């Protein structure tokens, strides 16, 4: 099932939640919608599900207009952040719900329903909980039951809204891995919403980064990390050092100092220099584009972290860098920093 979203606009009062969004999702993909809160990612998901309606634009499933159908007729499985399990029903009945509400003409027999629910509970590895009530389950178990319930109707598309957002870090990690394995098994076209970049990069085949109702970048997890298309994406994904620079006569200037960096045809004017923390090579004074004094060194894990006060910036900018453990750094040292990789984005881009 391919999903084609075109020119979707959605406003809530004066707030534009989605501003002319286009997106194409291929069959069998596991796509992540990643963005900060208020970026419109959940609204987009709800519009695809039929729980919200756009003010303009179209949504089609395999070329067929989805907006002409209500949520119940789209055969979409939806998993909510807070599970939305029916508390007065046992786990079994929760999973069976979608099968029991089918029109009589196509409804499965009781034996078929039983078999199907058992298969689904096996799939989410919780068959032993069939007789329990949702209140008796842990958060992670509830979410897996919610997923089994969504899968019961054999959805053409699976949509997950911050599925692991309400869970603690450890369970979240386990479920991520589990979701990816599950997707490899059942291969249904899936979209999940998250504000957690690690989750998006780890689970999805493709990541859509959103901000303020617009799509900033669509790409593989590697792409959005290594080749961020906009300043927003660079700042949002991974940790970046951001320095305010000015491009003048094809040179990069930081404060009153001209940096020995190629401006790469960046437009003249105030800009931002983005560098990944681990992409700065530390060298002896005078050997790199940037200079600074070491203030603090914290050594743990495979690398050490150092706070460095950059000279040549008006009021002095403190940055945090990652350096290899074998590099000897002491507070008070004057070092040079040479970006191995960097990106320049014009201010406001």
């Amino acid at each position, binding site marked *: 099932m391919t999903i084609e979203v075109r020119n979707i606009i959605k406003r809530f009062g004066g707030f534009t939640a989605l501003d002319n969004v286009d997106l194409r999702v291929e069959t069998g993909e596991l796509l992540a919608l990643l963005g900060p809160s208020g970026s419109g990612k959940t609204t987009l998901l709800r519009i695809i599900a039929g729980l919200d309606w756009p003010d303009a634009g179209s949504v089609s499933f395999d070329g067929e207009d989805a907006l002409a159908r209500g949520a119940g007729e*789209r055969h979409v499985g939806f998993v909510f952040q807070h599970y939305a399990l029916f508390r007065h029903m046992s786990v079994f009945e929760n999973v069976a719900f979608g099968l029991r509400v089918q029109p009589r003409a196509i409804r499965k027999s009781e034996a078929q329903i039983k078999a199907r629910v058992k298969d689904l509970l096996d799939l989410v590895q919780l068959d032993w909980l069939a007789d329990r009530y949702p209140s008796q389950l842990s958060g992670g178990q509830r979410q897996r039951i919610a997923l089994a319930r969504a899968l019961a109707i054999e959805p053409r598309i699976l949509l997950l809204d911050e599925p692991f957002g309400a869970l603690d870090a450890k369970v979240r990690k386990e479920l991520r891995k589990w979701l990816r394995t599950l997707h490899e098994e059942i291969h249904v076209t899936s979209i999940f919403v998250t504000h957690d970049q690690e989750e998006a990069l780890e689970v999805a085949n493709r990541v859509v980064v959103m901000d303020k109702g617009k799509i900033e970048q669509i790409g593989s997890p590697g792409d959005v990390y290594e080749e961020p298309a906009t300043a927003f994406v660079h700042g949002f994904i991974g940790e970046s050092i951001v320095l305010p620079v000015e491009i003048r006569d094809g040179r990069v200037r930081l404060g009153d100092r001209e940096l020995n960096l190629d401006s790469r045809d960046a437009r003249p004017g105030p800009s931002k220099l983005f560098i990944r923390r681990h992409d700065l090579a530390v060298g002896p004074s005078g050997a790199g584009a940037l200079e600074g004094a070491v203030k603090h060194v914290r050594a743990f894990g495979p690398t050490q972290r150092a706070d460095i006060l950059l000279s040549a910036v008006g009021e002095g900018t403190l940055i945090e860098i990652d350096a290899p453990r074998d590099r000897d750094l002491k507070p008070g040292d004057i070092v040079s920093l040479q970006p191995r990789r960097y990106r320049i984005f014009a201010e406001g881009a």
Partner: protein
Amino acid sequence: MGLTLTWLSLLILIPLAGLFVKTAELSLSQFIDTVTSNRTLHALQISFGLAFAAALVNLVAGLLIVWALVRYRFPGRRIFDAIVDIPFALPTAVAGIALTTLFAQQGWLGAPLAALGIKVAFTPLGIFVAMIFIGIPFVVRTVQPVLIDLDVELEEAAACLGASRWQIITRVIIPSLTPAILTGFALAFARAVGEYGSVIFIAGNLPNVSEIAPLLIVIRLSEFRYADATAIAVVMLVASFLIIFLLNRLQRWAQIRALSVG
């Protein structure tokens, strides 16, 4: 703990015990004669039967009112919301007189109903109307907060799974509200059984026709037949207790099934 129990005893149990002590002045046969006399039985039947019917009506009407108040935004919603509390706040005698005036033969509602051949005031139907009036806030006020808290996502989840609007209401919403609905029903019922002030004005109080049990107790008291009065009271007490107890069990059962841990 000890303090609570002492209070409970002082406020509730000791007066109730007094009821039994006073009733014990009657011999067993006198007691049975009193409580099985036609007039007593009829009064009890009126009180319990009509209270039950009124609570059922309130259950349905209350749910509709709650639904409108919670799920729709309309001008004057807050005023309607406040109006629901009037039967709580109004002195019962005032309510009784107002209802009687309204439903009397020349009343605003009484006259058109009389033209249709329906007589409300001074009949059991009048008692029924008064019991509905005083019971409605109990259902509304117990169910309303639960419906407000009911997660819209439950309905959305059901809709995505293909449930129709009707299936969502009957299979998801109503079952989620069941414990609150039962509580509201029990409260409305209990209030209607014991209601005195608002009922006696509209009832007409004809023995064996439209006489409620609480009124019969008052009549026995005014005749200085205290033990007879307490005998009727004991029967009401035991019957009410049993009914509330059963409703409680039913509610507990519904609650356990709907138990939420967040």
